[in-house]
């Protein structure tokens, strides 16, 4: 190593260090450069398309099972029974958001667009049970029993000559 190279090394080290330190100093002294968001107090604005927790509007859900079939993680479970008016009645609709990977495939295939991503993203819980979102508030067996009763009633009505027209459509069991 020649003397020139030797001195060159020293000069280069000093110059490049100074260059770097100028940049860090600029960022250090400029308070506008801070980018941290103080999370619980400040939040960033979520875009329209944000894929947060899934939410199913069970009033419009037609229990078609598309979301269940398309879910790669099998995190949606749906139970439905055929109501008195031949429409499906949801007995239970659970989404295990502990398994959900928010891919949005179920939302895309939903024919009535009842299943949507909400903007929610905060749901820390200490047990996994709480990570299962239940959209039908009633117990599944209760719904089933009630629907079965309605079906039986409708059948009875249809059989009796007095009742000429079909039973009124079974209302969705909705109390979201």
């Amino acid at each position: 190593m020649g003397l020139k190279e030797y001195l060159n090394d020293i000069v280069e080290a000093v110059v490049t260090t100074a260059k770097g330190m100028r940049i860090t100093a600029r960022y250090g002294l400029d308070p506008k450069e801070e980018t941290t968001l103080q999370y619980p107090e400040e939040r960033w604005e979520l875009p329209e398309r944000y894929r947060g927790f899934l939410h199913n509007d069970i009033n419009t859900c037609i229990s078609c099972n598309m979301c269940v079939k398309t879910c790669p993680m099998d995190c949606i479970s749906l139970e439905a029974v055929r109501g008195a008016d031949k429409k499906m009645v949801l007995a239970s609709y659970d989404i295990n958001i502990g398994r959900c990977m928010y891919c949005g495939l179920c939302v895309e295939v939903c024919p009535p667009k009842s299943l949507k991503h909400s903007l929610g993203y905060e749901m820390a819980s200490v047990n996994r049970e709480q990570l299962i979102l239940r959209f039908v508030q009633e117990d599944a067996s209760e719904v089933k029993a009630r629907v079965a009763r309605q079906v039986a009633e409708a059948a009875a009505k249809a059989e009796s000559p007095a009742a000429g027209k079909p039973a009124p459509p079974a209302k969705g069991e909705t109390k979201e």
Partner: protein
Amino acid sequence: MEALAISLIKAVPFLGAVPVWAVALVLMVAVAAVVLAFALTFEGVGSLVLRKVAGDIQVRIGPNRVGPNGVLQFLADGVKLILKEDLTPASADRPLFKMAPYFVFVGSFAGFVVVPFGVGLIAADLNIGVYYVMAVSSLVVIGILLAGWSSNNKWALLGGMRGAAQIISYEIPVGLALIPAVMIAGSLSLQDIVRSQGGLWGIFGWNLFHNPFTFFSFFLYFTAAQAETNQTPFDLPEAESELVSGYNVEYSGIRFGYFFLAEFGDMFVVAALTTALFLGGWNIPFFHAETLPWIWGNLLSLGVFLGKAFTIVLIMMWVRWTLPRIRVDQLMRLSWKYLIPLTFFNLLGVSLWLLVFNGKGIPAMIASLFG
């Protein structure tokens, strides 16, 4: 200390019966306590400032949850370190493992004793001050080596070995870079060295401006001292991205805390030495601190000294958050091929300068030109 004790006994009547050594001992303990309190405070605040500086440079905020704007963060850290479980690995060499942090801490803390904080503010104005600092700071090597060895962890061992090699290598350039200041003052006592820089409005008397060689000496010392105290570009013994955490990887709780405090202690000692040896120490610009009333002189000089030292500490932090880490063979090369030859060259230059110009620096020569 003895002289102070005697004068104290003379001044305070009811101490007359107490033997001189007892008073001196009490005084020593008191002074040590004050210095320790200062050191611990600095180390706490230093860690906070370090994190704040890091936050600023890295476009984030830094600690801001404990106390207003995060100023009590260091207390929280301290409490956490004290309360955490102090683990000892099952296969560690227990006595050595337990002892190592004290070596490191003592090595760093003992340096505070000769730091000239002000006109009369020095715990012990040793006549071998500079070499005392170098000697006690070498104690750190033993601590790091012990920690690395006794942890019975290969990463720690590598860290300890690196630390030993590094600190021993860099003792030489550090020592050689300090000698110019000693030569100019003609004394190893830090107070004498600071006093020798008092002239010429207290700024141009600094050794930094004495002659070109001392100017370079300052930078050489700063670089070498960074390496000797394992600050970042040279933090190889810890090297968290290579050796996980190096020699202190197995430590937790307060024992880790000692390493942590020692790191900041070293930082301050280096900054204080830089200030005292090259930047005029406690000399107040345009004043003679010694001519002021005792209390004012000391307070002002203390302020000036701490101001300078903290500036140096800030620069060290700034460097730390800018530069990447050097490799172990390059570290050795830097010491033996660059710093040691350069410090020798500088030493030669300063000696010749002092010989040729009869001990006068450039500012003094310019001043004498204008009468």
